[in-house]
Structure formats: structure tokens, C-alpha cells
């Protein structure tokens, strides 16, 4: 359960296209026929395995499947809550990094560097207990805030790259028409950047979904935690974690497919 957080390794080599190694969910594209098949096999394969387990070995699998849905709901809430908050933090971080005011860009860069330099699991512990010293919040809220602060830094980089990908002339044209910097950002730059930003945000969403399993150590009854509770009571460790892994796999594969569909639509609209 090592919280490895390197999304994409770019190995640049002059003259050759960069090699992009994603360690997040394999988001299939239409071009990638092999991957597409791999997606089908793993997705429908896991569904079939789940059905077989329930039908042929209802004890303990049916009991496990009856026990974990609460956890799925919690995992979902943590993921959606964190991603929404992380988007807000990311937007301000991205804008902050691009600010011409040294102090603002300095703070934003510091935040990004510090967060990227600390393992996610350590950050979660740290923010969770640091928050606990200031305010008394429900475990789930603290976990969401902690995840969002971690992911906000990565989101910030996505926003920054997205904004920077818009040609400089767009800002100049907007400013030439008398718009303020913020008007130009809101009306001209960000609406265009969204198209660039959406696919990597989809990746972040799937990555966050998986990383959300880390909150199980923070007294949040997510999918993994529910599994652990069940296993501890019944000593069916192998069976329980099989189910937990299958459920994560199905959810993750489902969302990667959804996101790749979305990406296709966006690129078709371009």
C-alpha cells in the first residue's frame, strides 16, 4: 500500500517522441486496440468472477458483499468531496503560480514543492492530526480536507500547464480590448484551458479514487476499512481482500472508460 504518487514519467529524448509512462489507471483510447481488449477482459472478467463467487460460494462471499457497500458509498463520498475541493485549491494554486506578484507565486510554489516532496500517506496523517489540534471535525471531513490539500498541489500544476498552453496572444487580445487580467482569465483563458485540463483531471480522479483507500487508516469507514473490519471478525482475510480488490478494480475500470469516452467527445468537438 505504498503511496507512490508519480503520475507520468516523461523521458525526453531529442528526435524521438517522449515516452509517457502512466502509473494511474490505464485509460484506454480507441487507437489502442490491445489495451481496449485488456480493459474488456479485466472489466467483464471481474464481473464474472464476482457473480461466480456469490453463486458458488455464498459463504463467506455473499456475506462479504452484503457488508462492504456502506464502504463503497463512503469511498465515493471521500473521492468526490476531495476532488471538488482539490479543484478549487488547484485553480487558486495554478493562478498563484502564474502570478506576477512574487509573494503569491512564491507561496503557491512552496505549497506545491512541499506537498510533492512528502508521501501521501505521511501527509494524510500529518494534516489529519494537525487539523485535529485546531478544530474538532468529523473524521470524514478531515480526511476529505487532507486528501484535497494533497491533490490540490497536483491539480495546481495541471491548471498552470493548462493556462500556459493557451497562446499568449489570447491574453494580449483580451487586454487590448480593455479587459482586466481577471476578466481576461475568466472570459477568455480559463474557458479554453478547461478543454486541455479535463483529461488530466479525469486521470487525477481515478488516481484519487484509488488513493482514497489510504483514509481507511484515519478512522473513516471506507471500502478498505469495512473489509478490514469484516476480516478481523471472521478471520476470512483472503476472501475479504479478494472482494475489496475486485470492487476497486471494477469501479476504477468503469471510471477510466467513462473518462476516455469523455476525452473522445472533447477531442471530437475541437
Amino acid at each position: 500500500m505504498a503511496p507512490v504518487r508519480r503520475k507520468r514519467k516523461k523521458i525526453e529524448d531529442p528526435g524521438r517522441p517522449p515516452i509517457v509512462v502512466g502509473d494511474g489507471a490505464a485509460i484506454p483510447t480507441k487507437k489502442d486496440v490491445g489495451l481496449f481488449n485488456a480493459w474488456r477482459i479485466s472489466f467483464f472478467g471481474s464481473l464474472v468472477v464476482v457473480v461466480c463467487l456469490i453463486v458458488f460460494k455464498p459463504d463467506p462471499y455473499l456475506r462479504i458483499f452484503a457488508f462492504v457497500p456502506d464502504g463503497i458509498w463512503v469511498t465515493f463520498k471521500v473521492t468526490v468531496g476531495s476532488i471538488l475541493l482539490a479543484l478549487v485549491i488547484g485553480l487558486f494554486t495554478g493562478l498563484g503560480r502564474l502570478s506576477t506578484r512574487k509573494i503569491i507565486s512564491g507561496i503557491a510554489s512552496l505549497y506545491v514543492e512541499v506537498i510533492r516532496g512528502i508521501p501521501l500517506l505521511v501527509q494524510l496523517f500529518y494534516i489529519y492530526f494537525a487539523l485535529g489540534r485546531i478544530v474538532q471535525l468529523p473524521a470524514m471531513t478531515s480526511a476529505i480536507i487532507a486528501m484535497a490539500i494533497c491533490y490540490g498541489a497536483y491539480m495546481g500544476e495541471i491548471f498552470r500547464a493548462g493556462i500556459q498552453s493557451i497562446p499568449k496572444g489570447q491574453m494580449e487580445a483580451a487586454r487590448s480590448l480593455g479587459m482586466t487580467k481577471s476578466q481576461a482569465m475568466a472570459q477568455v483563458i480559463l474557458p479554453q484551458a478547461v478543454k486541455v485540463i479535463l483529461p488530466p483531471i479525469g486521470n487525477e480522479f481515478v488516481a484519487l479514487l484509488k488513493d482514497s483507500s489510504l483514509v481507511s487508516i484515519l478512522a473513516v469507514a471506507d471500502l478498505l476499512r469495512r473489509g478490514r473490519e469484516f476480516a478481523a471478525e471472521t478471520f476470512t482475510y483472503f476472501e475479504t481482500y479478494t472482494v475489496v480488490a475486485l470492487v476497486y478494480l471494477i469501479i476504477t475500470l468503469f471510471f477510466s472508460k467513462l473518462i476516455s469516452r469523455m476525452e473522445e467527445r472533447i477531442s471530437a468537438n475541437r
Partner: protein
Amino acid sequence: MPTAERHKMVSMEGVVKYFGRLKALNQVSLDVKDGEKVVIIGPSGSGKSTLLRSINRLEEIDDGRIFVDGINIYDPAVDINKIREEVGMVFQSFNVFPHKTVIQNLTLAQIVVRKRSKEEATERAMRLLRKVGITEKSSAYPNQLSGGQQQRVAIARSLAMDPKIMLFDEPTSALDPEMIGEVLDVMKTLAREGMTMVVVTHEMGFAREVADRIIFMDNGTILEEGIPEHFFTNPSQERTKLFLSQIL
């Protein structure tokens, strides 16, 4: 054309601009009077675009002063956005907003900056689109337009703000040859209507026909200026002669 009595729309005094160690503008002084059409020519890297861009402060200058309609635009107390509302700018790369339709390109700044109602902005936009000849494409997106059409939209977008002066930064340089004419025609119409214009261009035919004054720049300085008849037939500087012989 009698220009002596008209007030100065732009006045540059000893403007200096560095890019790193390169002196892009070296003590440039230039006045543009109300209604005057000034065409700036010169080899690439001579500072023409920098000069033009400094007039609405897209480039910050390192020394000197620039007045637009009597206001010192580098005065810290001046709201540069207010100045820019009055100064239209057309770019080589069009810079139309690709996520907005043609009509939205024209109405956006009117609504956001000039605080016009949507109806008023749309009405004005349609009038300007008729003027530049793009009425039938008003609800298209820029990527459905040719380069010439995009540039005409960009011109109309600037005009929608009712600028007192229009700056053109090589408006036809990125266009296919067959589209240059349609953009120049729009600019000529504008000139006939009395718009104050500063144009950086390589279109010598346009310069000859429209300009009240031609300015030749080289190495960040104004090397020579004059009315087109003199400038093209009898330039005084060797550098100008060389440049004209290469380009004509």
C-alpha cells in the same frame, strides 16, 4: 493633408526598450495626430512591432514617455485598461477567441468592459460585421473561417469598442496571398472614414495608397520618415534605399 492643427493622439518621447541586453527601441520619438495614418516599415527585428505594442503598454518601456490622447500611459496612477478601451489592436495572428462565436467575439468586451446591454452590443456587432462583410458567418466559430475572415472579425472586434486609434501589427503577414486584399480593403475603408491608424506592414502598395506618413525603422531607431511620394521615390538614407530595393 493639413495635419498641423490637429491634436496629438499619440506622442512618444525618447522611448527606450530593452529585451535583455538587446536595445529594441533606442530613443524613439514619434507623434501621431488625430486622424493621421502612419505606416511603419523596416526589416524584421528593427523594433516596429515593439514600438506599436508599447503604445497600449503590451510592452513595458524602460525609459521615455508615451502619451495617448494626452494621458501619460506609464503614469502609475493611470488605469491602463481605460486607455486600452480607446486603443484598438489588430495582431498578426488574429487572436480571435476560438471558444466564442463570431458575434460573441464582438460582443464580449462590449458587455464586460463597456457595460453595454446584450442587445445593444449585438446590434453594434452586426453593424460592424456588415461593414467587414461577414454577416452570414455571425454564429460560426472562428475555426470555420478562413484566415482573412478571422482577421476581419478581429478588426471588427476592435472597432466594436469605438476606439480613437487603431494599431495594426502586420495584419496580413500570416495570410495566404489571395486573402490579403480583403483585409486591406477593410483597412482602407477605415482610413477613408478618418480613423487614426498606426500600421506595421510589408504591404508597400497599401502604404503608398493610405499613409499620410511613412516611417522607416532600423535597429530600434526611426531612420527616416516622410510622405509616401518622397519616401518611395527619393529616400535620403542609404539603408532605406537598400531596404526598398529588396522589398519592391
